[in-house]
């Protein structure tokens, strides 16, 4: 077992109102009573809306946030007490933070990591060559970080995070803001890391489905779903068909519940899985279609449901 949590919670005090001399606080549960375990070599997709507690959970697993309740063990140790010891076996990429030095080339950060993680020179050279090839990063390793594109920087971040061959890799929105080509190359790279335990957070749920073998959904700090991707795939979730046409919709209106999205763009939502084929035949048979798209992301549906439940709760 790489990670084990039992009733893990983190509460903050948040300012409710602020007077001239006095502030009123309320307790806010960023993470609430989470129990889970993560085995070696699992690829975990940790998803949830903004503020759902993903980053807080990760930071408690890493030992940089002290839990206020429950317990967490990373590599069978208290991660707060053994933060530095655990760090030898962990690689981290935060999409919104950087371990590279802005004014120096990435290669200098790699060399620094070689010293910090005490990697023998020949092993370092071999890993650097392999990672550089896998991520197609050779051309920019000697350029100052300030001159790199976001995609190049993220590839360099990956090399810096993996140069010490960590057992556990934490990827917190590593593809945020990247173009589709760079995203795909990073996703392909991550799929090759089958001998590593990965915790991957992203708002791109297709990516999570591609990279991960198991998905955990958090909502308002609570664990609301913990299933393998295979199990998620088996869930009977409705499909949405989006299409663009200049035709008159009267031919199919009444047979389908059509919603206008924008000029010439329409959507048929909540189609049961056994109805998808018929609905598609109906649309393509009766209308001159310019573009059609079938959306079947189970994860997206589950997250949308989570969001709706939250909105209902708040209203």
């Amino acid at each position, binding site marked *: 077992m790489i990670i084990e949590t039992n009733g893990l919670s983190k509460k903050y005090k948040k300012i409710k109102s602020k007077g001239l001399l006095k502030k009123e606080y309320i307790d806010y549960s960023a993470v609430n009573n989470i129990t889970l375990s993560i085995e070696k070599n699992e690829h975990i997709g940790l998803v949830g809306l903004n503020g759902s507690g993903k980053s*807080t959970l990760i930071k408690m697993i890493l030992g*940089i946030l002290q839990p206020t309740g429950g317990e967490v063990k990373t590599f069978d140790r208290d991660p707060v007490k053994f933060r530095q010891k655990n760090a030898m076996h962990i690689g981290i990429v935060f999409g919104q*933070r950087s371990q590279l030095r802005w004014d120096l080339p990435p290669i200098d950060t790699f060399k620094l990591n070689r010293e910090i993680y005490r990697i023998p020179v020949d092993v370092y050279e071999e890993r650097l060559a392999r990672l550089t090839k896998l991520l197609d990063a050779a051309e920019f390793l000697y350029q100052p970080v300030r001159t790199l594109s976001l995609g190049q920087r993220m590839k360099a971040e990956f090399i810096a995070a993996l140069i010490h061959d960590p057992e556990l890799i934490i990827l*917190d929105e590593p593809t945020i803001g990247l173009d589709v080509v760079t995203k795909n190359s990073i996703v392909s790279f991550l799929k090759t890391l089958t001998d590593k335990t990965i915790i991957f957070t992203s708002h791109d749920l297709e990516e999570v489905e591609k990279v991960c073998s198991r998905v955990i959904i958090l909502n308002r700090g609570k664990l609301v779903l913990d299933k393998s991707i295979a199990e998620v795939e088996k869930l009977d979730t409705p499909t949405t068909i989006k299409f663009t046409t200049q035709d008159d919709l009267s031919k199919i209106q009444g047979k389908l519940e059509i919603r206008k999205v924008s000029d010439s763009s329409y959507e048929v939502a909540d189609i049961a899985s056994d109805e998808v084929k018929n609905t598609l035949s109906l649309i393509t048979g009766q209308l001159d279609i310019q573009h059609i798209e079938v959306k079947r992301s189970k994860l997206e549906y589950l997250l949308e449901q989570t969001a709706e439940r939250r909105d209902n709760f708040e209203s």
Partner: protein
Amino acid sequence: MSMGFKKGFSSRYALVFYLGSILISITIQFFLWKAVLVNKPEVEFKQTISYLVLMQFLSMAFPKSSYELNDEIKSGDMALSLLKPISLENKFFWEGLGYSLAKVVVIGLVEIVIYFLLVPHAVTVLSVLMVCVAIALAYTLYFEIELILGTFAFYTYSIWGIATFKSAILLILSGNIFPVEYYPSFIRSLSDILPFQYSFGAVGLLSQNPSLDLFTKIVLIQLFYIVVFHFIYLGLFNRAVKSVVIQGG
């Protein structure tokens, strides 16, 4: 350490401008003290101005780790530093030392030449060695003070006010702007007890009166404060890290 050195050299043009501002400052001080000590012997003037050049050197070379710590806390990059298998103290010390070395190469060497041109007495190898040891310990002591100040940023998220207060304290009690001997006796007595003088003024004093007795006294007090401040920093840091909040991604 090499990261700090390279970082320093990557901004070498900024350091050249820094050198320019230091040369202007030394020139102003030269004429100011010439006017102040107009009726005094030339030796006293040279002693004062060489002392002040040495203080300029120390102020330039000493690390600004409190600002670096503060920046990391404000930006949230502290999360990444905490996840390295190396203590923050080690990281900031060695990087800061590398950066200081880059500053010494670009700026400090010029200041050292000016110092030796101005110093009125003969300089022996032993006195240079004693001053070098005192500077190394003064650097470490100042670094510990910087770390303690930087740690306050865990609570205040900005050390601007604290850093300004530190500068004021150093101005009064360290002797880095005026030689302590010109202060009233009660301030002199106070600065004798407090640690600030042992990062600046005491080194200047030793450079003017290099004796083994003075050297031993200064080094022992420096070592005492380094150990005490190290433990104060550890206590503050461990407490701060437990209450730290790093939110938002």
